[in-house]
C-alpha cells in the first residue's frame, strides 16, 4: 500500500505543486489543491492531483491558497520546501527500496525553477513526470530529473507566459496517511478519504520536508506515455494555462455566464437573424416569463423537416437530434445529452478542416453553430451545457501538431469516455449507492420518470428486495405512465396516482426517490415541474427525500425560485386533456387576450426539502453540492482524460482494475469509476484481481502486468 500511495504522489507529472510546505504552516495540499479553471485548464486539474496525493481525500482544499502560490516569485527556491529528490525507480519490484530512498533524500533540493519560456519548459515538465521515473522509456525524464531530482513536478502557471515548476514530493506527506487506509476505502468512501485528508494535512504540517518516494509503481504510472500526443497535449494545455491564467480568473468571476434574456429586444433580434428555426412568438405570453423564449409550438417542426436537405451547414446527425428534441421524441437529461454527444461524434467524424484554418478553431465554431441550432429546437439542459463545455475544452486542448485524423479520433474517444464515465458509469455508481437505502417493506415514491430512479428500482427488485413503488404523475407529459408500464412489466408492484393526491398517498410512503435535471450549487434541485411539490409534502410528512443525480449535471449557478430561469412548454397541451373529451371548456377560448396558458417544464426544489443527494461521488447532503461542483465539476474530466485506461490503455499506467468493475487511479485524485465486466478494456485480460490484495497495473503499451502488493 505504502509504496503505492507514495508512487501516486510521485507520479503526478502535471501536478502543480504549490509550494510552501516548508515554511508555511499550510499543508501543502492546500496550496496545491487549487483547482484549475475547471473548463479550460486540464493541466491545472492535474496539478490538483498532487494535492490529492498528499491527501487522498476526494475533496480538495480551497483554492485561494493556491492562487497566492501562483503569485509567488519564481526565484524562491527557499520558498518551496525542498522536496526530496526522488530516485528513479529502476525496477517495478523495488518499492520498498525506492521508498526508503525517497524519504532519505535531502530536503534542501530546490524545487522551483523559474522558466522564461513557459511553453517549452512546461512541455518538458509535463513530459518529465511521465518519463522521469520510468526507467526505460522516459526520454525526457532524465533531463528533468537531474535538474531537480524531484519526484513530482508541479507546474504553476504564472500569469503571462511565466511558468514556475515546482517539484516537490508530496508523496512523502501523503504516504504516511495512506498506509493506514485500505485501497477500497480510499476510493469508495468519501469519508475515509476525508479523514485521510485530515490526517494528511496534519502530517504535512508536521513533516513538510519529508520527501516522497518513488516507488516502482509510481514510476510506472508516471512514465510518460510513449505517445507523443499526451505530452503534446500537456504542453498545449500548460501553455494555454500560463497565458490564460488571468483571463480565466476573470471569467471565473463571471461564471456562470448570464443567460440569454428574451425580454432584451435587441438581443432577441440578433438571435433571430442567426437562427435556422424561425419561430413565431406565442400569442399570449405569460407576463412573468417574458425573459424566456415563448414561441409558437408545433410550427417549427414541419418547416424544419422540409428544410432537411437544404441545410448544408448542419450535419444531418445534429439535425436529426434537433428535430427529435423539438418533437419531444428524446427527453430526459441523460438521453438528450447522449443523443447530442453522439450526433457530435458523427459530425466530427465527417468533419474535415477547411484549408487555411485550424482544426480547433474551426471545429469549435462548428460545434457552436450546432449548439445554437439545438438551442433553437429546445433550450439546453444543464447536463448538455456541461457536456458541450467539456467537448469544447477538449477541442481547444488538441495540439496543433496532431494530425486531423488523430485529433478526430481523440475527440471521438473523449466523447465516448464522457458518455461512459459521466453518465453510464455514474448511473451505475448511483444505483449501487441508492440500493443500500432500500429496505424490505419499503414503499418508495417517485415522481415523473427519472432514468436513474428507474434503474435503482429495477436493480433493487433484481436483488430481491421486497418493496412497493408509488408513481406520482402529472400533466401534461404523463411521463410516469411510461415508467409505470416498464416497472409493471418487470414485475414490480406499483401504485399510480397524480400529483394532487400526493398528500393522500404520502401517508404510506417510507422513502422518496427523485431524479433531477440539475443540482445547483446552493443545493437547489432543478427538476421536472412538480418535484418541489412532492419534496415539500414529503418533508411535511418527515419522509426522507433522496435525489439521484449524476455529478456531471451539477452546476455552479444558483437559483432561488423557478421563475428566473426555466423552460416553457407548449401552452396548447395545457388547454387540452388527451383522452378526456369532456374537458373542452377552453376550446376557442385560448385565443382570448385575457387567458394565458403556462406550461412550466422545471421547478426548483429548495435544499431544505432534500435529505440526501446520491451522486457518483457518493451520498452527500445538499450543502456539499458546491464542493463537488468546485472540486470535481469539470476538473474531473481532465483527470479522466489523462488516465482513463478504457480509452487508451497506454496513457495511464497506474489504473487499477478490480474484478468487480472498479477502476482505481492511484495517481489521480479521482477515486473510482467502473468498467463493464462484459466489455473489458482492450488489452485487459483475465489478470483482474480481487480487491483484497492484488491489483493490476497497466503497462505503457497496453499490456497489463500483474502486480502484487
Amino acid at each position: 500500500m505504502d509504496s503505492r500511495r507514495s508512487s501516486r504522489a510521485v507520479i503526478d507529472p502535471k501536478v502543480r505543486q504549490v509550494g510552501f510546505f516548508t515554511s508555511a504552516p499550510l499543508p501543502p495540499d492546500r496550496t496545491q489543491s487549487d483547482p484549475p479553471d475547471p473548463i479550460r485548464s486540464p493541466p491545472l486539474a492535474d496539478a490538483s492531483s498532487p494535492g490529492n496525493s498528499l491527501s487522498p481525500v476526494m475533496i480538495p482544499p480551497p483554492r485561494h491558497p493556491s492562487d497566492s502560490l501562483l503569485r509567488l516569485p519564481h526565484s524562491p527556491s527557499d520558498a518551496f520546501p525542498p522536496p526530496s529528490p526522488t530516485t528513479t525507480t529502476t525496477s517495478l519490484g523495488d518499492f520498498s527500496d525506492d521508498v526508503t530512498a525517497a524519504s532519505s533524500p535531502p530536503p534542501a533540493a530546490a524545487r522551483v525553477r523559474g522558466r522564461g519560456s513557459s511553453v517549452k519548459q512546461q512541455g518538458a515538465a509535463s513530459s518529465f513526470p511521465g518519463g522521469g521515473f520510468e526507467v526505460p522509456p522516459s526520454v525526457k525524464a532524465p533531463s528533468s530529473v537531474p535538474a531537480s531530482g524531484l519526484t513530482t513536478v508541479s507546474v504553476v502557471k504564472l500569469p503571462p507566459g511565466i511558468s514556475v515548476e515546482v517539484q516537490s514530493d508530496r508523496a512523502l506527506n501523503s504516504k504516511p496517511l495512506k498506509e493506514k487506509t485500505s485501497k477500497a476505502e480510499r476510493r469508495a468512501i468519501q469519508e475515509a478519504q476525508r479523514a485521510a485528508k485530515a490526517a494528511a494535512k496534519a502530517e504535512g504540517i508536521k513533516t513538510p520536508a519529508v520527501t516522497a518516494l518513488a516507488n516502482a509503481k509510481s514510476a510506472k504510472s508516471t512514465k510518460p506515455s510513449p505517445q507523443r500526443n499526451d505530452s503534446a497535449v500537456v504542453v498545449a494545455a500548460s501553455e494555454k494555462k500560463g497565458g490564460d491564467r488571468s483571463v480565466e480568473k476573470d471569467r471565473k468571476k463571471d461564471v456562470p455566464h448570464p443567460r440569454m434574456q428574451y425580454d432584451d429586444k435587441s438581443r432577441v433580434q440578433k438571435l433571430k437573424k442567426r437562427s435556422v428555426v424561425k419561430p413565431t412568438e406565442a400569442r399570449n405570453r405569460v407576463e412573468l416569463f417574458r425573459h424566456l423564449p415563448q414561441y409558437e409550438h408545433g410550427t417549427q417542426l414541419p418547416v424544419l423537416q422540409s428544410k432537411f436537405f437544404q441545410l448544408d451547414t448542419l450535419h444531418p446527425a445534429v439535425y436529426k437530434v434537433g428535430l427529435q428534441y423539438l418533437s419531444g421524441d428524446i427527453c430526459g437529461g441523460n438521453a438528450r445529452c447522449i443523443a447530442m454527444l453522439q450526433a457530435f461524434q458523427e459530425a466530427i467524424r465527417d468533419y474535415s478542416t477547411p484549408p487555411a484554418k485550424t482544426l480547433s478553431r474551426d471545429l469549435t465554431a462548428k460545434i457552436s453553430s450546432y449548439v445554437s441550432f439545438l438551442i433553437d429546437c429546445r433550450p439546453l439542459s444543464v447536463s448538455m451545457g456541461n457536456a458541450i463545455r467539456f467537448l469544447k475544452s477538449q477541442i481547444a486542448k488538441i495540439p496543433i501538431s496532431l494530425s486531423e485524423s488523430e485529433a478526430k479520433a481523440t475527440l471521438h474517444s473523449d466523447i465516448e469516455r464522457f458518455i461512459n464515465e459521466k453518465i453510464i458509469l455514474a448511473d451505475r455508481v448511483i444505483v449501487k449507492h441508492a440500493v443500500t437505502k432500500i429496505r424490505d417493506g419499503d414503499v418508495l415514491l417517485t415522481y415523473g420518470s427519472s432514468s436513474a430512479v428507474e434503474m435503482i428500482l429495477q436493480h433493487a427488485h433484481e436483488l430481491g428486495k421486497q418493496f412497493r413503488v408509488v408513481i406520482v404523475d402529472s400533466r401534461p407529459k404523463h411521463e410516469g405512465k411510461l415508467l409505470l408500464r416498464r416497472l409493471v412489466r418487470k414485475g414490480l408492484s406499483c401504485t399510480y396516482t397524480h400529483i394532487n393526491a400526493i398528500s393522500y398517498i404520502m401517508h404510506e410512503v417510507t422513502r422518496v426517490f427523485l431524479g433531477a435535471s440539475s443540482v445547483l450549487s446552493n443545493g437547489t434541485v432543478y427538476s421536472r415541474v412538480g418535484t418541489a411539490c412532492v419534496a415539500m409534502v414529503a418533508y411535511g410528512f418527515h419522509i426522507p427525500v433522496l435525489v439521484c443525480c449524476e455529478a456531471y449535471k451539477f452546476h455552479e449557478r444558483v437559483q432561488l425560485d423557478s421563475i428566473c430561469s426555466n423552460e416553457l412548454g407548449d401552452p396548447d397541451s395545457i388547454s387540452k386533456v388527451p383522452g378526456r373529451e369532456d374537458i373542452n371548456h377552453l376550446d376557442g377560448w385560448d385565443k382570448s387576450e385575457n387567458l394565458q396558458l403556462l406550461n412550466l417544464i422545471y421547478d426548483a426544489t429548495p435544499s431544505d426539502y432534500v435529505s440526501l443527494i446520491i451522486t457518483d461521488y457518493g451520498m452527500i447532503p445538499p450543502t456539499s453540492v458546491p464542493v463537488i461542483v468546485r472540486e470535481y465539476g469539470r476538473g474531473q474530466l481532465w483527470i479522466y482524460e489523462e488516465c482513463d485506461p478504457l480509452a487508451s490503455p497506454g496513457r495511464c499506467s497506474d489504473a487499477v482494475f478490480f474484478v468487480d468493475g472498479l477502476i482505481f487511479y492511484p495517481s489521480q485524485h479521482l477515486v473510482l469509476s467502473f468498467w463493464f465486466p462484459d466489455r473489458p478494456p482492450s488489452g485487459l485480460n483475465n489478470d483482474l484481481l480481487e480487491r483484497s490484495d492484488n491489483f493490476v497495473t497497466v503497462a505503457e503499451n497496453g499490456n497489463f502486468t500483474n502486480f502484487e502488493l
Partner: protein
Amino acid sequence: MPDTQALVNDFLNKLKKRKIEGSQATARQTAELLRSVISQQRVPYTNQAGALIDAVKAIGEQLIAANPVELAVGNIVRRVLHIIREEDLSLTTAAIGGLNLSAVSDDENDDDRDGDSTLSAAAVAAAARSTLRPPSLQTLLEDTPVSAAVPQTSSSGGDSEGKTADKSSRSRKLKHDVIEAVNELIQDIVTCHEQIAEQAVEHIHQNEVILTLGSSRTVLEFLFAAKEKKRSFRVFVAEGAPRYQGHLLAKELVARGLQTTLITDSAVFAMISRVNMVIVGAHAVMANGGVIAPVGMNLVALAAQKHAVPFVVLAGSHKLCPLYPHNPEVLLNELRSPSELLDFGEFSDCMDFGSGSGSPLLHVVNPAFDYVPPKLVSLFITDAGGHNPSYMYRLIADYYSADDLVVQRRATAGN
C-alpha cells in the same frame, strides 16, 4: 306522505349515484326536501316538535348514509333540526314567560335528565341565547327555569305531556314557523355567494395576484365582485386534475374580463412565490377549522405556508360541519374511478399481470378530497364574515344544537 317518500327515494338515488355536484346544490336540495317532508308531516296534537324532529331525523339518517362524504347533507339536516328546536323553544319560552309554569318544568326536568343525558353545556347556552330573553344576570341567577325549558324542547323521543294545554294554541304555529325558517335557510344557501362576494373588495387590492385551484362558484363570484368594483388583478388558476375544473373557472374568468393564467397543478409550488393570496373554495369546513377540499388543496396550502402567502377559504355557512374530523384523509374521502388517470385500454395488458397470490401489481389511487389542517388556513370568509380557523367551533355552535351532532343512532358511518 307517499309523495314525500318518492321524493326522498329519488334524492337518495341521486346522492348514492353522486349525481349531484357541489355542496351548494346538495344543500339546497336537501333543505327543499326536508321542507316538503316537514310540511307533509302529520303533527300530533302533543309534542309537535318531537314528531317533526323524529321525522326529519329518520330521513336525514338515510340521506347521510346515502353519501356520507357529502357533509352538506348532514349539515342541512342538523340545521333543520336546530331550526325546529329553536322555533319550539321560542314558542315554549313565550308560553313559559306567559304562564310561568315553573313547577311543571321542574318535574319534567328530572325526567329528561334520566332520558337524555347527552345535554351539553353548549346546548344549554345556545338555547339560552336563542330564547328571546338575553342572558342577563338575573336569568343566570334563576337558572333553573331556563335550563328546564331546554331539555324539554330538545328531548328527541320525548313524551312531554305536561304542557298539552298550552301547546294547543301554538300547534299550527310551530310548523308554520319551521317552514318559514327553512325557507330562510334555503334563501341563505342560495344567496351565500353574494354575501361572501360582498366582502371581496375588503380583501383584494389593486394588482393583486391570486391563485386558486379547481373551480368553485363561490370563488368565481368573489373574484368577479372584486372585478366589478374596478379592482384589477391577476388570477392564476391551477387546473385541478383529475377533474380539470380549473379550465371551467378559467373560462368563466376570462369571459368576465379577468387576466387569467392557467397552470398545471405541479406548477403551483413554482408559481406561488409570486402570488399574494390564495383564495379557494371548500367542500366542507370542520369544527376544528380544518377543511375538506378538492384533492390537491393540501399541496397548495403547504406551498402557501412555505411562502407565507395567506390561504383564504371561502365557505357558505351550509358547509360548516359541526363534526370534528378523525383521520379525514381516509374517512372523509372517496376514491374515484381510475379511468380518470389511466386509460384502461392502454394499460389492460399490465393490469392482467398479477402475482401468484392474485393481488394485482398495479393499483391506481384517485382520491376526491384533501384535508387541509387548520394551521394552514389563514382565514375563513363565510356569509357571516371573516373568521379564524380557531373560531369555527363557535360559529358552528350558532347553527347547530349539540343534540343533533349524532344524527344516526346506530350506524356510525358518515359521522
